């Protein structure tokens, strides 16, 4: 049976509120490796989507190439599996021409940050109304284990047997540098946090950039263990919450404060005092604080901020011209076309 053929509640006019996670599960068999972080992300996305209150047919997932590319096939929505790195560009064409849709572009760190890096930064600077999910496992999976643009210096892989000589990207800093209006990070193994971030991204009116740390059990297993292991995660996850002082640790005994030179430091609350803690402001127009937070940890074994770094409103691409274009297209008919063709200097030859 064609997996696209399944009907569901939204079709009979009974409204979309009845959609459940199961409605978003397509019939295609998922073929990621056992233990792959993609499963967790897929489950979180499917669990979250009913919240949108949209018929599933108004939702589109656009993917590129890589393990994450198959995501589109597993979602019972409209799906477009494109070519390597181009998901943001495909999604741009779709989103600007169909503003009635909820468009999600999804790819791995190689897809989005290496071969597709140009499309990513331009989608962000244009503030295209798409939600971009970058599944960052710091390695190439589908091509079987080469270094990626987020792999750490010195990383030994099949393509870098003597260790990578390339400085990795800081994806959030890159997105902020590109002028992204929404930048967030979450971790695959914390489903509630993933859903919280997805919700914030979906509520954001422009381009939303979400980095999802996720585990590749085959080529880079437990890269984020410090952030996800029960024993260590409290000490490593710095959860950003808008309007609240930035604190973390099992006893919330540590925090983030600003040094006199403006840079950020991790401090003991007992030493620095509660008043010294930085209050997170995701809506700040100036991106410098978000940028500093993005650079707080240099490697994932250090305490690492997760959550919404930045969410500011600025004009969404196409919004200012949308009504004019739609009205123009509605209005144009044979008469207008005739006038267009007869534009400029014309002359008539009599029979």
């Amino acid at each position, binding site marked *: 049976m*064609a997996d696209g053929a399944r009907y569901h509640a939204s079709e009979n006019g009974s409204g979309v509120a009845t959609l459940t996670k199961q409605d978003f599960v397509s019939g295609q068999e998922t073929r990621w490796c056992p233990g792959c972080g993609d499963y967790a992300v897929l489950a979180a996305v499917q669990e979250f989507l009913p919240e949108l209150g949209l018929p599933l047919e108004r939702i589109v997932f656009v993917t590129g190439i890589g393990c994450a590319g198959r995501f589109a096939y597993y979602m019972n929505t409209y799906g*477009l599996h494109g070519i390597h790195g*181009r998901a943001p*560009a495909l999604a741009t*064409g*779709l989103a600007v*021409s169909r503003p009635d849709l909820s468009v999600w572009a999804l790819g791995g760190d190689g897809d989005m940050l290496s071969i597709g890096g140009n499309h990513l930064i331009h989608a962000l600077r244009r503030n295209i109304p798409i939600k971009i999910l970058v599944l960052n496992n710091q390695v190439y999976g589908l091509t079987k284990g080469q270094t990626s643009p987020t792999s750490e210096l010195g990383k030994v892989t099949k393509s870098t047997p003597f260790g990578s000589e390339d400085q990795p990207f800081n994806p959030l800093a890159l997105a902020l540098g590109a002028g992204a209006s929404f930048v967030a990070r979450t971790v695959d193994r914390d489903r509630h946090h993933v859903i919280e971030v997805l919700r914030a991204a979906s509520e954001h009116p422009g381009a939303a950039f979400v980095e999802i740390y996720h585990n590749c059990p085959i080529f880079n297993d437990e890269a984020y263990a410090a952030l996800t292991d029960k024993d260590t995660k409290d000490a490593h996850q710095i959860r950003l919450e808008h309007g609240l002082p930035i604190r973390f640790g099992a006893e919330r005994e540590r925090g983030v404060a600003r040094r006199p030179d403006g840079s950020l430091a991790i401090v003991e609350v007992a030493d620095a005092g509660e008043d010294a803690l930085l209050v997170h402001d995701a809506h700040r127009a100036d991106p410098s604080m978000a940028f500093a937070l993005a650079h707080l940890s240099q490697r994932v074994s250090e305490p690492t901020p997760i959550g919404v770094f930045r969410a500011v409103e600025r004009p969404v691409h196409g919004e200012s011209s949308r009504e004019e274009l739609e009205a123009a297209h509605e209005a144009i008919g044979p008469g207008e076309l005739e006038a267009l*063709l007869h534009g400029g200097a014309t*002359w008539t030859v009599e029979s």
Partner: protein
Amino acid sequence: MSRTVDKDRVVIRIAGDSGDGMQLAGGRFTDATAVFGNDLATAPSYPAEVRAPAGTLRGVSAFQIHFASRDILTPGDRPNVLVAMNPAALKSNVDTLESGATIVVNDDAFSKRNLAKAGYDANPLEDGSLSEFRVYRVPMTSMTVKATESIEGVSSRDGARAKNLFALGVLSWMYGRPVEVTEEWIERKFANRGAILTANLAAFHAGYNFGETADLLDVRYRVKPAALRPGTYRNVDGTTATALGLIAASVTSGLPLLFASYPITPASELLHELARQRSLGVRTIQAEDEIAAANMALGAAFGGQLGVTATSGPGMDLKAETIGLAVALELPMVIVDVQRAGPSTGMPTKPESADLLMALYGRHGESPLPVIAAATPAHCFDAALEAVRLAVDYRTPVILLSDAFLANSSEPWLIPNIEDLPRIDPRFAQGPNLDGEFLPYLRDERLARPWAIPGTIGLAHRIGGLEKEDGTGNISYDPENHARMTSLRAEKVRGIARDIAPLEVDHEDGAELLVLGWGSSYGPITAGARRVRERGGKVAAAHLFHLNPLPANTGEVLRSYRRVLVAETNTGQLSQIVRAEFLVDAESFTKLEGKPLLAAELEREILERL
């Protein structure tokens, strides 16, 4: 008193420094000529540099117009008249003139300094080197300054800048062009710039009156209006015609047009043209690169819009992977390739039609798609509509080949009636197509698959570049399925041959030689064949508008002539195809100079073979 001489046709070339306004003067002369009722064809030639040093050979900008009292097909091989605004313009064009041609120079510009800049050791106006031509020395700069010096607010520098309109005035007198057309244009163009408006009008009138009163110019020419088919005409270049065709297709299909492209010479003009049409519902995006532009168009197509991207040679290389994806997705999309001389960056402003094999085969794997080539500037309109029709009807990317010559050249276009335009019906899928299920790759009688756009309830489906199972579109690595899908995709494109016009032959009884062409060679081949016939030679000509699939009767036509000559501006790409497809021993005439074929060259090649 001047005498008046009747002429059937005239080729004029106006050349000057790129800052001299030659394209403007040429454009105005063209409008007046069109309104007068001559048939015409034009071709501009720009310097490659944005601002080449003034007065140098590199900085010469020229405009050529061929007009006649009968229908004509090319902008002309060799000018009969050259207007040269400076020594560089003379030097870079004099070799193209026919013997006995008329040369009108701006005498003021032939200073020692300008002669040196153009590389002249001696003044050619005085050393006898132009003795085979009829040379008129007109002090255009000083006469323009004089005509405008009494206008308040106009400096002598401003006045001198209007010398292109003085030259236009002279030409308008020589060829009896209606002055009102130009006057009205000047009044519109400079409506809010009082003194400049007055100065330009004064310069134009001064030039015209100079012709009328000066004894210097002793001859006027009369080129009677041509007997064109009845109807309303306008003059269009290939760029405008392509833009109008795409908009017309958008209107008749009801599909909003999304045009995404990346700036590249000479295709950028199409982006500029369409970007102005927001009030007609046209959305344009200047993408971050060629690849993005193609993907944006394809993304829009997935969403149910008319996705179009345009580029020139190098951009096609970059778009190839996306075009392959469109082949696999089987979504409508149009890719316009305004060809230019290659390889690599090549000669960006120079025409060459050498992307045919790339259009046909330039993708990995088996990825057939329809290819259409425009034949003349005005034909770009029909070609664009045809590209959209095939794309939508067959759910396939279509490559539309144009070139730098067609994009910039112009000719009169008989404006079609709206009701005669082809109907294009998107036929969006509305519901299940097999036993209550929706199969995204279940094909219709054309082998086209359903176009089910997001938002359509019950038809959610997923498609991608991975091989798909026949019918369901689910991912499939099944060997037999891959063979079947490969053959279905090819068969769908081949089947288009049933849906396109047969190859028409301009046959002459007794002809044993057929000249076959494609793209912008239409004009020179047809004109060359006509000249041969005027000399009593027997020759047939045929032109391919569809390059894939070829019209169903192509083989039959080619085999019915003893000899076949294929003329093209590449090393013989179409001739390779017809040899391979039809086992016809086609001969090849090729030219790779970054210039269009000339009618005279075709005439010569044909005569050699008769």
